[in-house]
């Protein structure tokens, strides 16, 4: 292991969809490390391969070649069941479309990853988590009775409840209005600061990327630039100069 504080390593990740003439190379040998306790944003236009990269890092998709380790475990060779169990322990997800279970209350939705793993929640941690995401008085509601912002808060709490090694967020604000987006981003930022929660966020929203400690720019399946914490303006300029729009 190179950096003592990096939890996800990817080396030479190539992903090709299809075969022969119709083959599409989504990733051309990407090397990336995700630092522990940081919010990393992955930016890029549609088709740049940013979602593919995230899916591979999260163990949802397998690279055509290359290696990925999470917390020191090589995941590209794991079988489906082993991979599923690894996801339970190490990975949290936040989706663009929330993906809550309609028949469960907010509380049960939040607790779902623990329920699936057959574990009990630490009540103290659960209470502070719920307090922090502002759902204390909404726990008995079903998703249909919650606003979009509230649903995404449930989804964030669900991703954090098992204290995973890394949380992956796929366009978490893509389906929300700008005011609600701001709240959600603040919440994700604060989870990084309060709990030191390693988070990877795929987005094409510069405002969201401005919340990150580190921004990776992807174009045509390759990381073309990397910056530290940047303002929205700086990020937009970089995108402009790299012609990533």
């Amino acid at each position, binding site marked *: 292991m190179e950096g003592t504080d990096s939890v996800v390593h990817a080396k030479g990740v190539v992903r090709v969809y299809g075969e022969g003439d119709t083959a599409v190379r989504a990733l051309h040998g990407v090397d990336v490390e995700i630092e522990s306790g940081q919010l990393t944003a992955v930016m890029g236009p549609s088709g740049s391969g940013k979602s593919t990269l995230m*899916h591979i890092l*999260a163990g*949802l*998709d397998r690279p055509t070649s290359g290696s990925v380790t999470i917390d020191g475990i090589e995941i590209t060779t794991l*079988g*489906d*069941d082993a991979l*599923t*169990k690894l*996801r*339970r322990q190490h990975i*949290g*997800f936040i*989706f663009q*479309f929330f*993906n809550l*279970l*309609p*028949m*469960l209350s907010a509380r049960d939705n939040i607790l*779902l*990853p623990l*329920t*699936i*793993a*057959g574990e009990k929640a630490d009540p103290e941690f659960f209470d502070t988590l719920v307090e922090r995401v502002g759902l204390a008085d909404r726990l008995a509601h079903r998703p249909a009775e919650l606003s979009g912002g509230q649903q995404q808060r449930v989804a964030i709490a*669900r991703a954090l409840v098992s204290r995973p090694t890394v949380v992956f967020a796929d366009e978490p604000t893509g389906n929300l209005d700008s005011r609600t987006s701001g709240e959600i981003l603040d919440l994700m930022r604060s989870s990084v600061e309060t709990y030191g929660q390693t988070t990877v966020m795929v987005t094409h929203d510069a405002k969201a990327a401005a919340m990150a400690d580190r921004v990776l720019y992807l174009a045509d399946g390759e990381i073309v630039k990397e910056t530290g914490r940047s303002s929205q303006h700086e990020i937009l300029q970089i995108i402009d100069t790299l012609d990533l729009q």
Partner: protein
Amino acid sequence: MIRFALQGLLARKLRTALTAIGIVLGVSLISGTYVLTDSISSAFDSIFSQNYKNTDAAITGKSAFDLSDDGTQQAPPFQADLLQKVRDLPEVGAAGGAVNGEAQLIGKDGKAIVFGGAPNLGFSVDPSLPQFNSLTLVKGGWPGAGEVVIDTKTAAEKGFQAGDTIGVQARGAVRPMRVSGLVSFGAVSSIGGATLAGFDLGTAQRLFDKTGKLDQILISAKKGVDRPQLLAAVQKVLPPATQVRSAEDQAAEDAAGTSEFLSFLQTFLLVFGGIALFVGSFVIANSLSITIAQRTREFATLRTLGAARKQILGTVVLEALVTGIVSAVAGLFLGLAIATGLFKLFDAIGFTLPNNGLVFRTRTVVVALIVGVVVTVLASLRPAMRATRVPPIAAVREGAALPPGRFHKYRSAGAVAVAVVGIGTILAGLFVDGLATRTLLILLGLGVLLLFVGIAAFSARLVRPMAAVSDPVARWSVVVLTAIAWPFILLPLWLIRRLFGRPAEFPGVLPDGPAVTLGGQNSRRDPRRTASTAAALMIGLALVTLVATLGAGIIKPFEDAVDKISSSDYALTAQNNFSPLPPTVAAAAAKIPSVTELTSVRAGQARAFDKTISVTAIDETAPKLLRFDWRSGSQASLSELAANGAIVDSGYADEHSLVLGSTFQLQTVTGKLLQLTVRGIFKPPAGGSPFGNVTISTGTFDSTTTQPQNIYSFLNIEGGVTPANTATLNAALASFPNAKAVTIEQFKDNQTDGIKSLLNVLYVLLALSVLVSLFGIVNTLVLTVFERTRELGMLRAIGLTRGQVKRMIRQESVMTALIGAVIGIVLGLVLASLLAARLDEISFTVPVGQLVAFAVVSVVVGIVAAIWPARRAAKLDPLEALQYE
């Protein structure tokens, strides 16, 4: 729009096929029924027309009244000298006389040869008059005196060849006879399991105790003489108690019993086809509702593009129409297989039907197609109406729900009302007096139908409370079944997978808490969908429960009745438990010194108050062995019967206002009139009375009946039931291979065997409906998996393993099945209690063991139904599932 509908169907081939299975199976049972009954009736037709192929007229004996065909009596024979008189007539070309009767063939093992309950036909053959001989000689020669020809099927199955010796028994003891040849009946390969034995006339007359007598004379007219002339001429020489009929009339008369039976069989089987279709219509309606909910956006897009509501309605109905046609055609041909299966089924319970090749008539095609298509289209109407309510805005809004219909709020009340009307109709059918049987059955059928529809519509309300109970029940019953199946199925399967290098989870038994909990929650999330899916199984289970409860309600009181009536040690019956036996059998047993008491019950038919009734006769030993539940009279009355005494059952006494000392007239088969005095009136036991309406003394019976027969003999023996006594009795009966001595306990079992076989046939036929509902559950689950694809993707992403996905879906499936089973079993019990309240013959007895078995079967149905949908769900790639629209 038409092209759109067809393309829609093609795009959803799998879903359409699953939806159609219910209709395919229902139609196949209907077409199978027609093929079966048409084939049987064509086989019978060829048998009966074969009998009279060169005959113009037939003379038979004439009983004083029409006999029903219960095997206890035959029309009396007439003097053989009539044959010569007929031959002497100038109008007659040729005439041949014949006798017939029951002739039992004895196998090499010394046991009577019986194929199920089929008769053992014996008759005389006259090779000198080949025009009247319907038998074809296959091997050997025609029988001489003391010889026999037997049918090829019996010969083949029991290993007999021409030249062998075979035991033959008719009225007397077994006689060994040489098999002179093997015959077949015209072109018919089998006439329903009956054994054939042909003799020369003299031998036959001796065997059947008809020396100097004939049962039938077949006549062909001289050239140039027409039928009416012939009949008129024969009529003139006929003695009393004989009659002449044209060949066609005689064939129709012979066939009358079978056509009645066939039309009953047809209706009986069609009812089950109807039930399967009814269940199928639930499956169709349910599947269409689900697909339409899933296609909301598609319909909304069509609406935004300018499609009118009517066009949406048209699209859905057209889809149903095409589905209906395709499944009806598939069902039609599957019916051929079903017909073959039914032949085998009846064969298996010892009820061999004549089969001369399958007959596929135009009527079968027309009815099957119409019924299949109409049912499918009717079932599609409600979902199609729902589709028309999709607002155009749903095209652009995520998760827009269908607006409820105008009558939505009256749904529960309406469902209850339909169920109440159903119960009312059933009650009216049962308790209004004086309804024709047909009306009664129609009212019952209609009532049950309405009740099912009502309960199905209402049961959405029951799903949530019932799920609370069925959740743990499903969980633990799956654990128990898994534990049972573990060493036999799960472990070997796992080992095989490992051997082939496929990674597999080691099979566990204990419930997977999280997955099962999720499954339980899934089953509550759309109560209407769960309820409609369960409703299909509910119908099957309700009917199975009804049948089982009624069966138990008939068997139990019958056994009680035997206990009440007879205190004897043994009973003597025929090998098939119901054929009457000649009195010589009882006489042989009575000769055993240790037999202390023996009584026989004769049975026959007679005519009184202008109706043919069953009569029985008892002898002077009867009071010692048989007990009656007297209303008037006493056991002593039994010995006072003498020449003109009678005891009657209470129902018959009430019907004809008979009291102790009343007199009435009874006409016996031979035409003799008896003036009888009522000596006693008894209450028949609830389980069916072994006695006829009228019981007279054996002496009177024998003097007025040709060839009297016993239906039962009961006896007491020193030492009671012991293996040694059983052996002694059977040794005494050795010369009567068709008779056996059974203990009174075995007697009860044997007598209820028929009911048990019938119950098994009903179970097999109802199993088809349960099968349809199983496909209904499969269908709902598959559609649900489609619908919840993205959700499944999320669950997999956050850590649900493939195995857990399977167990989640299985739990939902088993719960749905259990809900259907519980409602069905309760409904079946309610229906059975109503019937039992009305029918004296049936006491309401809950067959607990069987009901538990049905519940277990339902759980298995749930597990099996989940296999395939669960595999599909587990195979979903989480990533693709997450991106699924």
